[in-house]
């Protein structure tokens, strides 16, 4: 590595460049990793745009070889890496395979090349790449880039990189400066760097500076860790909430012990999968927006299935809640098998759209976009549902009908229709949950089974028929679970949460938000 940077250094300091040759390209592309890396470093030392483009092609897995010839293949078209001219690629050409090590080297090389790019974004990316490595040989390069940098933010980050390198330098003054500078860092790498240095440092003054920097870095890291724990709790809670919301209607309000709730979620997830497939096939350009169509599709698919179930089976079972357990259990078995025979028993792939991949980086905290979106989505669904149930006539009728069906019908409510709507609504919300789940987990025939127990726990813990209770229970369980998981591990956390539920119900035998008073018995 040192060797390479010395080479790079000469390159940048001398500013000469020469073109990539076919032999070089071949040496970089094929052979043992060690030899390829050496060849690459040699080429980089004299890099021009072609070299950069070729390295980029290697990173993108867009290089093939056949009979000692190297080809760059993009969008099905082959080109010569040396000349850039379009050339036909022989059919027996094999992919050039880069292992992790190779890819790492390629990235660093590219980063070094990009450090002086005109595009600030590229430079920023290059700095991020360099931050991972604190090789002293980088110093001249970093210093040069640092001096030339105009963007304040990038400059600051380069400064940190520089400090990290300086930290192990000979000069006590520089070490001191570096140690102080690094106090602002929020990267866990800095902490280990500082700690490492602390072990070796002999100078008392620098030691003190190092110690105080470690404390400050650790403080900001700890903040990030705590925030991450809370976030993960809320995120788990939001998923529990989504999973439970539909059940809060079909079970909480309507009293149907809906064992097929999970399968209705599964239908929503498969609907998302289908929409994704349609977009990929017919609207590849708008693929990133497939979710916008998938959300209503998932809702509708599950709602229609719910309506069919209500009309065909459930409606004959009102007033016999325990029978609904049996019937919906049967429905659940059939729906799962139906999906197995149409989509196969294996999982299907649902991708996050581009804008939901990756995460929002705040210091050492990285909050995945898909989770942020799901949290927002859960609360949007909650708000919509709460409004519908408490503010609209349909909501009123649903509550009335589910409490006293014959009398509601004597009041002029078309109970059959309200029942269908209500069940379809609950099912549709299950579908929405399925759509959301497809963004974080498996989409397979068993999707629903994994969540059904949790869904019932949440609804019941919150208090049957109590929407607010469902919300508190979901978030509470989510945060509690993640909190315990943090120190006891996932298995014990799950056990502990279940035990806590059992104990909690002793204190609140009607759930978190119990209906009190006489109306509870009526």
């Amino acid at each position, binding site marked *: 590595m040192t060797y390479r940077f010395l080479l790079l250094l000469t390159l940048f300091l001398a500013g000469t460049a020469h073109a990539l040759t076919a032999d070089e390209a071949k040496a970089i592309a094929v052979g043992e990793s060690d030899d390829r890396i050496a060849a690459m470093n040699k080429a980089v030392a004299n890099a021009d745009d072609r070299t950069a483009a070729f390295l980029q092609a290697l990173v993108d897995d867009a290089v093939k070889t056949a009979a000692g010839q190297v080809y760059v293949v993009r969008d099905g078209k082959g080109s010569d890496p040396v000349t850039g001219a379009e050339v036909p690629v022989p059919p027996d050409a094999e992919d050039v395979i880069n292992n992790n090590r190779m890819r790492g080297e390629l990235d660093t090389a590219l980063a070094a090349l990009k450090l002086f790019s005109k595009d600030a974004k590229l430079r920023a990316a290059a700095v991020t790449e360099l931050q991972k490595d604190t090789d002293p040989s980088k110093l001249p390069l970093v210093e040069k880039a640092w001096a030339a940098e105009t963007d304040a933010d990038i400059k600051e980050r380069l400064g940190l990189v520089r400090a990290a390198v300086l930290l192990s330098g000979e000069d006590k003054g520089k070490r001191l400066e570096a140690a102080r500078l690094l106090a602002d860092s929020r990267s866990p790498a800095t902490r280990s760097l500082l700690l490492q240095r602390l072990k070796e440092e002999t100078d008392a003054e620098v030691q003190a500076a190092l110690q105080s920097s470690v404390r400050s870095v650790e403080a900001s890291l700890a903040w990030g860790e705590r925030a991450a724990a809370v976030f993960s709790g809320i995120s788990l809670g939001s998923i529990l909430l989504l999973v439970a919301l539909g059940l809060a209607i079909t079970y909480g309000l309507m009293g149907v012990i809906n064992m097929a709730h999970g399968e209705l979620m599964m239908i929503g997830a498969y609907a998302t999968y289908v929409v994704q497939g349609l977009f990929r096939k017919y609207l590849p350009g708008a693929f990133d927006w497939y979710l916008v169509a998938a959300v209503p599709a998932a809702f509708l698919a599950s709602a229609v299935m719910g309506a069919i179930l209500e009309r065909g089976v459930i409606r004959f079972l009102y007033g016999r809640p325990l029978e609904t357990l049996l019937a919906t259990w049967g429905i659940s078995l059939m729906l799962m098998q139906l999906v197995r025979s149409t989509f196969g028993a294996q999982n299907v792939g649902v991708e996050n759209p581009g804008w939901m991949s990756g995460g929002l980086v705040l210091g050492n905290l990285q909050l995945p976009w898909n989770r942020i979106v799901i949290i927002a989505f859960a609360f949007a669904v909650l708000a919509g549902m709460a409004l519908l149930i408490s503010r609209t*006539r349909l909501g009123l009728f649903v*509550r*009335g009908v589910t409490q006293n069906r*014959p009398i509601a019908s*004597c*009041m002029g409510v078309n109970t059959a229709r309200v029942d269908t709507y209500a069940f379809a609504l609950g099912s549709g919300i299950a579908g929405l949950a399925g759509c959301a789940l497809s963004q974080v987990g498996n989409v397979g025939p068993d999707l629903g089974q994994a969540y059904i127990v949790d869904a019932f726990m949440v609804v019941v813990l919150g208090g049957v028929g109590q929407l607010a209770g469902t919300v508190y229970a979901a978030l509470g369980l989510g945060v509690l679970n993640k909190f315990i998981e943090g120190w006891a591990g996932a298995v014990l956390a799950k056990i502990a949460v279940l035990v806590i539920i059992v104990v909690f119900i002793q204190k609140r035998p009607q759930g978190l938000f119990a209906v009190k008073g006489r109306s509870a018995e009526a």
Partner: protein
Amino acid sequence: MLTIHNIHQYYGGSHILRDVSLEAKLGQVTVILGRNGVGKTTLLKSLMGLVPIKSGTILFDGKPIQGKTPYERARAGIGFVPQGREIFARLTVEENLRMGLATKPGSTAIPAELYELFPVLQQMLHRRGGDLSGGQQQQLAIARALAARPKLLVLDEPTEGIQPSIIKEIGRVIRMLADRGDMAILLVEQYYDFAQELADTYAVMERGEVVAQGRGKDMEANGVRQLVAI
């Protein structure tokens, strides 16, 4: 307004209503009397469509309704105060009243006169129906039936559990509603004096049959009290 012709009704194997015929006219209070278990409630439930009848016809406004669902009957203009109140326990008083307005478009307001009739309802507007006392619930049930201004008001023992002063009030209301002339009232009542006071026509049931019928004025003379007592 309402004509019931020869209806028969069974619960499982037992014959409950036997060939019952009855009429309720606009502007009149028709009272049904009878001892416990003779089938009064069953008759009203059949009328509302809550239990199926085996045979016979029910004409409302001249149209047969025996095949219709309860909600269609309610939409046609029948208001029902069931025995045992049957309010929506977990809906608030206000929401209970709104349920009574189900046949009307969504924007219809709860008629203010209901609160004049039953001031306690206004005080307890946001309390859950199930938390009310028995008598309060009964008042709510009556108000709920009146909310949509039905053409036929069917009441199953509305005085049960209600304090005397309000019974009087209910009596007054029933009379007033009948006298307005746009409503027929069918009242099942055990409380003989209350019934007699209100009846324009009466019918006495026994073992699922109508055994006596006549004009309210003649009740005393026809010995209805004794009939009910046997």
